[in-house]
């Protein structure tokens, strides 16, 4: 089952987690001039037979963007990628056989293995926007929309 939870749930232990993410703030700040995109504006149509990327997303292809979302439970504590979701996922689709990803995820690829923050944290991601189907060579994970060469910070 998919789980959603509101912002108000993510208040505990912020200080502890903040430590883990401090080193990431610098890189995120460098990209301050990136264009901001949002989950709500990724698609211009969203139907049973597939989605169409919005004109803005299409225009920003290959450019530096910033997007805010929630880090889904990562596969490993350190990883070169994670899944960014519109709303927090309480479960880990990697870990549980009857769980599945929402359809409108964004996959975030860092250049190196990076320590993840706790699942369900709101994060701001900056990096290069890529769209179109791609399959990660290491894991076979298929994605339609990605932020690559990415950095992230707690939102």
């Amino acid at each position, binding site marked *: *089952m*998919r*789980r*959603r*939870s*509101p912002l*108000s*749930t993510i*208040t*505990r*232990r912020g200080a*502890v*987690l903040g430590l883990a993410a401090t080193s990431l703030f610098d890189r995120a700040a460098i990209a301050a001039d990136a264009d901001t995109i949002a989950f709500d504006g990724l*698609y211009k149509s*969203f*139907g*049973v*037979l*597939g*989605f*169409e*990327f919005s004109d803005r997303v299409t225009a920003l292809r290959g450019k530096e963007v910033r997007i805010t979302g929630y880090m889904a*439970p990562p*596969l490993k504590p350190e990883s070169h990628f994670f899944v960014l979701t519109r709303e*927090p*996922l*309480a*479960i880990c*689709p*990697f*870990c549980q*056989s*009857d*769980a*599945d*990803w*929402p*359809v409108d*995820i964004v*996959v975030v690829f860092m250049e190196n293995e990076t320590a993840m923050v*706790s*699942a*369900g944290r709101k994060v701001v991601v900056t990096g290069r926007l890529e*769209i*179109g*189907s791609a*399959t990660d060579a290491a*894991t*076979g*994970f*298929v*994605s*339609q*929309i990605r932020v690559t060469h990415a950095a992230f910070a707690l939102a």
Partner: protein
Amino acid sequence: MRASCLLAAALTTSLLGSSAIAQTIYPIDRAEILEGSRFDFKVEFPNAPASAEVNVTINGKPAAEVLGRPTNFVQSEEGQKHSALWLRGASLPAGRYVVEATQGGNKAIVNWDVFATTQPRRAKNVILFIGDGMTVANRTAARILSKGWKEGKYDGELAMDDMPNMALISTSGTDSIVTDSANAAHAYTTGHKSCVNALGVYCAKNALTLDHPKVETIAELAKRKTGMAVGVVTNSEIEDATPASMVAHTRRRSDFNDIVEMFYAVKPDVIMGGGSPNFLSKVTPGSKRTDEQDFIAKFKEAGYTLATSKTEMNAAVSGGAKKLLGLYNTGNIDGAFDLRLARKGTISKFPDQPDVVEQTKAAIEMLKGNPEGFLLMVESARIDKYSHSLDWERSVFDTIMLDNAVKVAKDFAGERNDTLIIVVPDHAHPMSIIGTYDDSRPGQLLRDKLGVYNESLPPNYGPLDAEGYPTDVNTSRRLAVVYGSYPDTCDTGRPAMDGERVPAVKGPDGKTNIANEKDCSGPLATRKAGNLPFDSNSGVHAADDVILTAMGPGAERFRGHKPNTFVFRVMAEALALGGK
């Protein structure tokens, strides 16, 4: 988008690792097997012996002789520490069989009952309704909400209660007391017991989920042996466990992309549900496939009409379509509570979804013209999903929806006496009605508002709409429905009008689930310390028996207490699916 097969297979394999010390024979002991149905015969021998060190007999004769085809011996199967003897696609005439597998001084013995079905066929049509997770309290609450209650009697009967035959059904699988929906539905569609997460297979030691020993499903039998039309209708993703059990053979129910291929292989005439992304080529944004197969195009080429909304579904029916692929949502179709009252969930994205009643009407309309009859499974899937969320109002609304769908089937069956209708849950939830919450009672806490025994006054829900749903449940006196299993959570004592309840969220350690604070601040909100393992984020299934009701030819077989596999047997007998 999904994790790669390799990755997920590794996770699954590690979960399955257990070292049996004796030989294991599939099908297992006490299997009841339909005469002429196909099954994979497999014997696993520990410690990887050579062929010469083992012997397998059936009724005292070499297995290959009885099964009529040579068996295949694999030493150290897949490099594992066991050897295997296989015969895929076996079948047997009716009779009692004793299978013995000898390895050195150890002998394992299982018994099979291969049963015949008598001619002539008694039922032209079978309609199997599955209320996923529909526990007894679901029926009681649905009756209170939709029929009314006065002086200890109801003002009407549910369509599913007003049936001549009833049985108590046990739902456990081979590996555990408490089943899941895959294993439970598999028992109905194959007549074999299996293990949690399995569909159409026994759970052997194979590393890959699709390699386990298969058993034939009733949809495959109907297609292979008769001219019957087959329909599969649900309001979950069509690849989800219950609908998948009609066509699937996998150790892992989450193999959604493979399950779409299995639907395509069996080709039920009517396929309706949610879960479209697994039908789309991976090059299409919104796809969850990992390959470029376009199953929308494939089904169309195979003669199916595609419907993506209620309007298109109804147009297909009035246009005379006999084969329909109806995909109405990327995920699950919204439940009755959101379709009718709250308008939350995905209603804004998918404003024209049919409910289970409308789907059932459409399916029967398309299937009923087939001269050889039809087999239709209809699932109300979210009765279970909402009980996992401890969202009993949504669960009960979907019980009412199932009952309205049963009414449609009963109206079709009428006086024909050629249609077997079965209504059965696949497993229970620990849910009970303990009284009513009355806001006019003194005190500030939810417990103060609870009236029990003589103070459990009937609820004051709003008037019923034309389909028997209350038009308001967020009233001052409400049923007090409790769940016996829960993570750390907060109980509001009120319906969740702003969307499906989320009882718990992942805590900071990434493992433990903690109460969803959103529900913890209202006037009556009550914090409850969970009674489930710390990694549980929602309620769990219960092993409690479930109530089956039935009518039509063959239904008289349902009485007393039966294992869930008996449901398959009654359907197979009514349709005379046995024979070579």
